[in-house]
């Protein structure tokens, strides 16, 4: 792809849908994520955040819709799309019987990184994540936080253009929080990396995200900068927490109808004798 043809957004989701039987986890989401941003995905438990991120990384296949990563259609050219993407899951399941160094060398192999570059970056990343002295130790002896930091190192090793992060702060101590927040900002500002992260830690989202979306019941219900969300929610000077709670609040009947629709009982009103939820319907 020539420079002139470069797409505006690194991630383009078009009517993305994921169903498990009759249950709709993600309901026709359309979204564009611009280059070089820290982009936050917020939402209550079970809203569809993780499912959306996992589809973007190729861990799940959408039921319908398309995902374009830097111009590569994930359904048609998944290897090229994945080469540009790094992923950090919420729980750091890695091969416990490898050493930290072997794990990073394995990642280098998966991404076919040139030997010289891998030899330079592996010690550099181990140092960044304070794991240098553990390079020859088996991962099974690591704490949860150390494993999480190692997964961060592995995800950054191939210098991805897009870093997808699901709940980055789980298991990290306050020092780790600070390290990760500063790192994300630096990666976006200095290396033009796009960070797409889902989090329940609203303080993190408030501190580092350039733009946010809020997902509820598998649909995007709000999108914009924090200020734009404040205006939309009517919480003029409120914290992100206040904005989030206002945007996701619903009465019992609205919630029932949304759940009924999501679980494949599309005739929700006839069951609950109420109107369907009045959200924005997922189109952005």
């Amino acid at each position, binding site marked *: 792809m020539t420079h002139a043809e470069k797409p505006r957004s690194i991630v383009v989701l078009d009517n993305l849908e994921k169903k498990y039987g009759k249950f709709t986890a993600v309901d026709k989401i359309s979204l564009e994520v611009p280059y070089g941003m820290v982009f936050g995905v917020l939402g209550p438990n079970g809203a569809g955040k993780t499912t959306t991120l*996992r589809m973007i*990384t*190729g*861990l*799940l*296949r959408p039921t319908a819709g398309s995902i374009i990563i830097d111009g590569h259609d994930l359904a048609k050219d*998944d*290897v*090229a799309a*994945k*080469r540009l*993407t790094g*992923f950090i*899951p919420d*729980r750091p*399941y*890695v*091969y416990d*019987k*490898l*050493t930290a*160094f*072997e794990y990073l*060398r*394995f*990642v*280098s*192999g*998966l*991404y*076919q*990184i*040139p*030997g*010289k570059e*891998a*030899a*330079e970056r*592996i*010690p550099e990343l181990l140092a960044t994540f304070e794991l240098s002295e553990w*390079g*020859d*130790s*088996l991962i099974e002896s690591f704490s949860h936080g150390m494993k999480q930091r190692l997964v961060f190192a592995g995800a950054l090793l191939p210098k991805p253009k897009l870093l997808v992060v699901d709940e980055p702060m789980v298991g990290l101590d306050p020092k780790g929080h600070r390290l990760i927040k500063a790192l994300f900002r630096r990666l976006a500002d200095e290396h033009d990396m796009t960070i797409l992260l889902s989090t329940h830690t609203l303080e993190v989202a408030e501190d580092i995200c350039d733009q946010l979306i809020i997902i509820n019941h598998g649909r995007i219900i709000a999108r914009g900068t924090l200020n734009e969300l404040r205006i939309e929610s009517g919480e003029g000077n409120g914290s992100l927490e206040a904005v989030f709670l206002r945007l996701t609040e619903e009465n019992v009947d609205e919630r029932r109808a949304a759940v009924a629709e999501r679980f494949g009982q599309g005739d929700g009103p006839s069951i609950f004798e109420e109107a369907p939820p009045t959200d924005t319907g997922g189109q952005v």
Partner: protein
Amino acid sequence: MLKGSLRSSEEGRHRAPAFAGLSLLFWFLLYRASLRVVEEAMKLDPVGELLVQKLLSITFLVFLGLLVFSNIVTAFSTFYLADDMEFLVTRPIPKDALFTSRFVESLLQSSWVVLLFGMPIFVAAGVGVGAPPWFYVLLIAVMIPFVAIPTGIATLLALFVTNILAADRTRDAALFFGLVAFSVLFVVVRALQPERLLNPDSFDSIGEMLRMLSAPTTAYLPSDWAINVVIPALFSSGAVDKWSIALLFLTPLALFFVSAWLHRGYYMRGYSKAQEGRHGRSVLTAFRDWLFKRTTTVRGSMDKNLAQIAAHGERSISTLGQLVRKDLSVFLRDASQWSQLLVVVAIMVIYLVNFKYFEIAANENLLGDVGLFSFNLAACGFVVVALSGRFLFPAVSVEGRSFWMILQAPISLERFLVGKWLGMMGPIVIIGQFIIWSSNLLVGQSLANCLMASLITLVNTVGVAAMAVGFGAVYPQFHNPNAAKIASSFGAVIYMILGMFVVLAVIMSTFHVSTYLGHIYVGASARPIYAKHILVTLTGLALPFLVATATIRMGAASLRSRL
């Protein structure tokens, strides 16, 4: 992320009938084969009845060995290592009730295969001999205490081991004692020289044969008690040995009650020690840790390895190379796999010892040299299929929760499966070649035959190994941490059956040409071969490669469909 076992309820609906169908087919074939043997034996006057009795004694003895082995492994697992025990021991469940439920579970788990596949042999004996109906009733009555005795012994042994020994490696202890029991019974069976029964001509005189047949198989073993009870019913002659009936029925009851009584006082101590063992220190764990340390730096420290990687320059680090390396490291450092290597050694020794005895049958023209050559190929093929099933079939499943790394990495699933195949096929190839060369040299096959057998075994191994990986991807169990259990799952049984079909197809399609070449090499006259024979042989040799490609693709497609 990925569905762990079954793809859908629809697939689940097909699973039970498929398994039942395969079991029935196997049941029927075993019944027919056993009936044939019994009918042929009965024609040998005057030793027919003695021969049938001897064969049944050996069958009971072999089953006893299998039962003891599987009961010991199962008892450790159900009483001490099962995941639900942690929940159960914290509940207010009476000790006797807990013991009884686990005893029954252990009994059923370790005995159903023997019950299911042993019955056709005994039923065939009854039909072949023309036994009265009450023989079948008695047979069922005998089988119940017969399978319960090993369970009783195993629960006592497990209690003893977990209380007395440092239970650091309880699983290894289970396997060790199981193997010891199996080995003792193997020696007993070998001492009986059952292969001589295949060939009555190998006896110097009828007197010698009668002496061997009428000698008791073993003394003081439950298999002997069982045979003493069923034989009078089978031939409708003589009185049932009351002493054997008493021993057969009272022994399991005594074992059950003694075991239950001892479990009241000592079970919790054993259970607690078994749990400590998972984390505790012992000579074995110290050795394991030392070995891990050695293996992690066997190619030098991280700095040395970094220098090696840097020497690649702008050349990329190989994906396949790293996939293979990762699998080998993970496999070798998993201590639960080490005991499996004992099984591999046992299989090799048992194979070679038994094969040497089959030479007798070949010499007496029962099988003949050509028959022995083909039989060896098939038997070696079976070993290769079984080993691939044990070590390669679970290869995808053991990725477990780390599989996300592969799914989100820029590699195709086909490439990932090829990495598994290439990485783990090497040891199976070596074992297959070791067995085929040593067995053929042991019976003095010609060099030409040795080379052909080696080639056929090699292509079979290549194909079967890919099938194991491919089918392992079609039937993955990502949430099952026990590779041995994965290797005995429904998908593994399907793979084993189809793998044996491929092995037999290759042997049959290459039979003409290999026999021809074998005869020509030693200067003997041979049936001529034509172009069609060569074509069939080449097709046969290509078959494993075609199967390999197809199953790897099928496995990758199946994994994709689960996303």
